[in-house]
């Protein structure tokens, strides 16, 4: 069995070469690892590699292919890229450039400022709207450059969580 696994910017090819109980031989990008790989409870593993001890916890994020991974030192997001995921990524890739993006409020609050107008061109990182919630003001920025196609909120208005605020159409360049 072999899959690609994504960790931050890196996509690694992983292959299970052999397995004898908890003793694994696995290759990551061609580098071989002989591991004592002991499952603990629900997504926790104790791994010993060259007498180094790793305690790794996996917590699934939305389904089976994405995990939050905790080690003693760090926390990662890891994603399994199987055939389906690849297909999906390709389809999305092709489409999203002509798609649109909706900026939603993650928490309930009040619209303090709308900094753009309909039809206005925005650049990636540009602040689009400011929300006050839990006594704090938070800036919401455009993820990529495009054109504001719709503004769904007004200054002073209260918004609910997940309420749509501003729609941006991606540039096609």
């Amino acid at each position, binding site marked *: *069995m072999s*899959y690609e*696994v994504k*960790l931050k910017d*890196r996509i*690694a090819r*992983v292959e*299970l070469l052999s397995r004898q109980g908890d003793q*694994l031989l*696995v290759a*990551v990008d061609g580098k071989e*690892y002989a*591991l004592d*790989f002991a499952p603990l409870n629900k*997504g926790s*593993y104790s*791994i010993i*590699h060259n007498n*180094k001890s*790793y305690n*790794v*916890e*996996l*917590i*699934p994020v939305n*389904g*089976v292919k994405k*995990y*939050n*991974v*905790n*080690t003693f*030192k*760090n*926390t*990662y997001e*890891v994603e*399994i890229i199987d055939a*389906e*995921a690849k297909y*999906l990524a390709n*389809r*999305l890739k092709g*489409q999203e450039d002509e*798609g*649109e993006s*909706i*900026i*939603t409020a*993650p*928490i*309930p609050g009040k619209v303090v400022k709308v900094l753009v107008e309909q039809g206005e061109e925005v650049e990636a990182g540009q602040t689009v709207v400011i929300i006050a*919630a*839990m006594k*704090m003001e*938070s*800036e919401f*920025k455009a*993820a990529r450059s495009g054109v504001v196609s719709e503004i769904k909120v007004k200054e002073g208005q209260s918004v609910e*969580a997940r309420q749509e605020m501003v729609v941006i159409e991606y540039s096609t360049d």
Partner: protein
Amino acid sequence: MIKKVLVANRGEIAVRIIRSCREMGITTVAVYSDADRKSMHVLYADEAYHIGPSPSIDSYLNIDNIIRAAIMSGADAIHPGYGFLSENPAFSERCKKDGIIFIGPSADAIATMGDKITARKTMMAAGVPVVPGTEGKIDTEAEALRTIETIGLPVMIKASAGGGGKGMRLVHNPKEVKSALRAARSEAKTAFGDDSVFIEKYIESPHHIEYQILADSFGNVIHLFERECSVQRRHQKIIEETPSPIMTPEKRQKMGEDAIAAAKAVNYQGAGTIEFIVDKDLNYYFLEMNTRLQVEHPITERVVGVDLVKEQIHIANGLPLKLQQEKLKQNGHAIECRVYAEDPENNFMPAPGKVTHIDIPYGVGVRVDGSIYEGREVPIYYDPLIAKLIVWGKDRHEALERTTRALKEFKITGVKNNLKFLERIIISKDFVDGNYTTHFVDENKDFLMKEEPCDQNCEDIVIITAFMEYLQKIEKASPKEMTALKNNWKDYSRVRSVLKL
């Protein structure tokens, strides 16, 4: 004697208060909004009363509903915790009127300290140093300029009823005075319905140091030393420690005496905190008084060896303080880290969500106060504080190395949180050196945002583990589930992608 306490609060502080009540054999009553039916304080209390919809204004700030719950439950006292109604003089007064003991100060003391100009005048009369500036409110540019001539620039124009940074203007140049004055007054009027403003000298690179005090109904007032609270983000504290690394024994005693004088000036009763602003030469000035328990009270508990909630209850019971000032001592060093459900990479924006996994640190010198559990949804309506880590060491050095150890053991998954950010603070050079002001987070941004490096081996282990877990899931998945999987993933390929910020 108090037999049953209603805790008019939620989250970690409600749980913390209930713990001390339990130890004293006092029955506890929780109150909860719609969003908090499954909150830990509801599970942990002996009794629980629903007090309204999720927004605080309809529940935790609804005096009528809380008083009704107190009466129905037969509670003889109410503990307000911090935030919400804890510094609302009307609530203190209402409890008194309805024959319920309010575990906190009188309405009068709350009101006096709640208005900045009144508090300032009261402190000046009591001989407690205040930031140089006007005694009362000012109305004209001429008055403002006269004050500036005396105290020098820069100055801060502040709303008397102010808070949260509203109605405040920093002035560096005499030419800005007129417009700043107008802006501050108009903002104050809008925000608080009161356009009174005053002028204070602006303290650059300040420290925020506060004193815990306890006062009984017999006029005995003691202080339990200082807490250093200069590490802040968005004007909110995130790490506190005691003793303060910049304090001298002389200054400690002098400030302690002034803290007691401040409390006596308002005939204070209960637990309270005098906040001082301290400049680099250790000149200190009264900033405000918090007439309630503070979030960071546990570091004082650890170093002085008291249970402040129990002391509050004893005082509310009309008992004299047993603690004596001259016998109190600071033993070792304590640090509190506030764990927030927030995203440090996105300007500390609150990040509610469902907690899927927690690892809590244990062992020597570690205390955790929290209110989350696996499976719990952190509500979107309230403060994002979900836990506090309180660590003690025999000296500052040990407290720091222990805090680092505990933060590494601490994991919360499912909601974004600031645990890694806290760890970076603790190991940053300025913090280790005890060399920091309220500008610390801004000044150390680059270091604080960096990740601890991990060699390729370590990353490969992570990759292998995820890979193996996935393999196992696939092996275990029944054909039915696999089909569902296949059908699901096509739904994701919609044209519109909803951006989640």
